[in-house]
């Protein structure tokens, strides 16, 4: 059941619902009164459809077409004793699906070449051995196409599958072997993500922060995160970083730049200042990182990675009211307007004042430090605005260091941050 076109999902949902209900012993509750309950039997959905095929000779499958009509496929010549109405009633009972169209026999009948029983028998002969072929990603009884379906990653894998079919005595024409993308588990911002992209969780001894963005600094490939996401804020201590957490195979880099906080012109007396809360780490050898790409989650507030944002420019100016975004390991993707620009901001519990920082009204929480801040310009293309480092205690407003500040000569200096060929 791995491949299911969207238009057929509803009936699959019904069928799966039936399966789940049966597993939890609620079959009798879910069953409409007019349909007498089918026996409670454990098994997969394919097992259930095979049992239907035992009751309805020639039954090839059931699904909803693109217009929502019920379609039942039947092998021609095998239906001799049952009327369409009887078939509908049997299906309604077996599936505990009290649809009046089924009871009235008001469904489309599609000629099938193979019965579901035959397809199931072949599938069981192939599975699970066929998964021993390198590159096989899925096997399925495809009710819509009335064939077995085997997904492979490459043509070479497909050739091996064909060999396995022949050895098992399964007719070639009964099987669709097609190239499909490997099915990957959904990653979150807190999972191991390679190549590295902005917005994912990083770990240094005792702390969690967010990977800001990949950058090239003085011909060194690395990444930018917050200065306070180093062993000591200001100064270089060779802070080691892992993504997402410390493990044997998750080391990603070492801090190599984090200018000291000092008194300078414009810094209040008795305080120390910088123009950005940023540090640069050199990428460890052999670690893949995507220059110019940030994690894009499925929705605002989600942690599930669903794609990427592409950095195509760096902000040359910032205006109050501009709608900005950030992606961070704790609160994911959040969005809101700039509320204040160029604010000299004292950092609670320290003597530090960060000069000329911007405030954005958007969700933030601990662990989001280092998040990339950006503006969506066109689809997935974004302009990089800076690096998040702080927020208010209620988590409704965050503070970031503008990218122009980060690249001052007394900060990290010039960086290359855009995706290759984009700016």
């Amino acid at each position, binding site marked *: 059941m791995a491949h299911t076109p969207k238009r057929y999902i509803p009936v699959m949902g019904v069928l799966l619902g039936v399966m789940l209900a049966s597993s939890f012993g609620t079959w009798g509750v879910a069953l409409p009164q007019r349909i007498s309950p089918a026996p409670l039997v454990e098994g997969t959905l394919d097992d259930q459809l095979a049992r239907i095929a035992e009751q309805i000779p020639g039954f090839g499958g059931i699904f909803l077409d693109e217009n929502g009509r019920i379609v039942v496929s039947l092998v021609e010549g095998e239906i001799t004793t049952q009327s369409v109405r009887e078939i509908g009633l049997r299906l309604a009972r077996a599936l505990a699906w009290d649809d009046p169209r089924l009871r009235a026999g008001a469904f489309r009948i599609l000629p099938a070449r193979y019965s579901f029983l035959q397809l199931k028998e072949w599938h069981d002969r192939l599975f699970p051995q066929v998964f021993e072929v390198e590159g096989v990603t899925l096997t399925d009884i495809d009710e819509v196409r009335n064939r077995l379906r085997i997904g492979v990653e490459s043509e070479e894998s497909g050739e091996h599958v064909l060999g396995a079919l022949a050895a098992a005595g399964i007719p070639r024409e009964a099987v669709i072997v097609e190239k499909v993308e490997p099915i990957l588990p959904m990653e979150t911002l807190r999972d191991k993500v390679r190549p590295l992209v902005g917005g994912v969780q990083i770990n240094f001894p*005792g*702390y*969690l*922060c967010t990977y800001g963005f990949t950058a090239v600094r003085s011909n060194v490939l690395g990444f930018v995160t*917050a200065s*306070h*996401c180093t062993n000591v804020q200001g100064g270089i201590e060779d802070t080691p970083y892992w993504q997402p957490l410390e493990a044997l195979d998750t080391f990603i880099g070492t801090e190599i730049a984090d200018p000291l906080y000092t008194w300078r012109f414009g810094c209040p007396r008795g305080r120390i200042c910088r123009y950005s*809360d940023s540090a640069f780490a050199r990428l460890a050898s052999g670690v893949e990182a995507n220059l110019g790409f940030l994690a894009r989650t499925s929705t605002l507030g989600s942690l599930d990675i669903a794609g990427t944002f592409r950095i195509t420019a760096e902000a040359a100016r910032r205006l109050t009211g501009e709608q900005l975004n950030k992606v*961070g390991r*704790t*609160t994911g993707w959040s969005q809101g307007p700039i509320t204040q620009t160029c604010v000299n*901001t*004292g*950092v*609670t*519990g320290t003597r530090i004042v960060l000069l000329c920082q911007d405030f954005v009204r958007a969700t*933030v*929480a*601990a*662990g*989001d*430090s280092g998040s990339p801040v950006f503006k969506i310009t066109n689809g997935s293309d974004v302009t990089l605005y800076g690096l*998040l*480092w*702080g*927020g*208010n*205690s209620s*988590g409704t407003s*965050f*503070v970031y260091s503008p990218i122009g500040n980060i690249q001052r000569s007394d900060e990290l200096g010039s960086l290359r941050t855009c995706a290759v060929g984009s700016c």
Partner: protein
Amino acid sequence: MLALLRGGLDGAGTLSDPEMFSAHIEAKAQTRSAIRVKLTIRNESARSLILALSGRPAYNILVKRPDGTLVWEWQRGKIIQQILEHRHLAPGEEVAFEATWRYVDARGRRVPAGDYVIQGIVTLEPPETLVTNPLRVHVPPPKKRDHK
């Protein structure tokens, strides 16, 4: 001694159950112009635990009237570094924070003499928090020159 507010977040990974910790607040010193309080979190279990401290600083102090009206909040208006710390605490080990309340309200005005309740909050992995016992304090009348 311990009041615990728990959010709905399950599966905090390797983090330890907040119920394994206690949170306590006490007056360290009190004068006519201010009170200094100490907030202590302690590993009450018999094994080493990981405490998530959310933000730097990861604590807040609330001052309320006896009827519950909020008078002053230590973190109000402050910008917190959004870093998440995982601190290992051995059995019985403590971590402490201190803060001073200068008997002012949210607008910086001296509060009237009388009884107040001080409570500490430690922010853990969002949305979890540890809340201390309420500390009842008496604010004395100001010296005459404090009135100016």
